[in-house]
């Protein structure tokens, strides 16, 4: 998807604003071989534009707080991917081991004593 098509998904998003998001590395579309300033947006990039749009327009996140929030979110998703990988691996383990691990993940952080 090209930048003009992405912008057209929103009622009030200008190409200029989306370009600043790209320059600030909030969104990282693939740079196209067609030339300077041409990008290709993959599905994940479009979904991320939706997220940033919501944060700015509907959640009133101030511009200078946005990088902080995105960084925290990226760390959250990092951890979720890792946990997903752990639970995929654990799925093949013996039940008692699996249950113990799942209990740990469920209780996560709460001391159980």
């Amino acid at each position: 998807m090209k930048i003009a098509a992405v912008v057209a998904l929103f009622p009030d998003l200008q190409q200029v604003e989306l370009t600043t998001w790209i320059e600030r590395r909030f969104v990282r579309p693939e740079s196209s071989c067609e030339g300077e300033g041409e990008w290709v947006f993959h599905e994940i990039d479009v979904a991320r534009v939706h997220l940033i749009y919501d944060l700015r327009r509907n959640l009133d996140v101030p511009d200078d707080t946005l990088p902080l929030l995105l960084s925290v979110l990226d760390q959250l998703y990092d951890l979720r991917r890792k946990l997903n990988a752990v639970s995929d691996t654990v799925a093949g383990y013996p039940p008692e081991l699996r249950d113990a691990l799942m209990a740990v993940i469920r209780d996560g952080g709460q001391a159980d004593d």
Partner: protein
Amino acid sequence: MDDPYEILGVKRDAKADELKSAYRKLVKLHHPDLNPGKKEAEDRFKAVTAAYDLLSDVEKRGRFDRGEIDASGAESAPERPFYHDYGDAPGGRKYRSSAQFDPDDLASIFGQAFNRRSGGSGAEFSAQGADAYYSLSVSFLDAAMGAKRRLTLPDGQSLDVNIPAGLQHGQILRLAGKGMPGFGKGGTGDALIEVSVAPHAFFRREGRDIHVELPVTLQEAVLGAKVETPTIKGPVQLTVPTHATSGTRLRLKGRGIAGGDQFVTLKVMLPTDEETELDTFLKNWEPHHPFDPRKHMGSK
């Protein structure tokens, strides 16, 4: 769909800015990308968005209030992608946070959790420790002949590594039980050591054979001689046959690696300093058997 006023929690005569602030409050609570673990968040978010889409459109709101359309008229809110669908998938690594946490950190989180579990509940957790990866660089001769090397680990401990004779560049040695400690009754992981072999000044290796280029003098090449040649196991005497030319390849059987051979390629070196007698002799010398060394190249 339920009543959009109820969904947004506003009165039927709510003004546009009241609608907007109610909508924003709910979006903050229910945005599914900010609540990736809550399955119901996406449904709530969609309902809230659909309700707001209907009521924020003056014309649609009027028709709804007059009963001309029901709330399902708003359900045609366009489908949109959500970031959490991508962020949770392996492809989400694209937006990996630059603040990567230390693997030790994760291990310590799990370690604490597992220790806690195994303390009281009786459901003891055991897991094999992770493998540890190291790299080690050894000299050509150590790789050829085998050696013992000591590897100092980042934590200050050391590991004795046996380099087997004939080890190849890039080969990986596995030291069972020398990796990361396991949890519970799980065994220790292995240490995997990738070995790189430094090139030698004059030995070259092809499989189990060793190749070396040996410079000889003009006299040694013409008259034949016994000369000393290096091998990986120390110098040996080599017989240079008479009239040996550059490129003659001689084999020293069993002098390679583990039963391989050593091949010696002769390289005739002419004197670099002035040798007037040799020049004079060659000027007056008429070979008994003149020959053209370039005949096979088609020259005349």
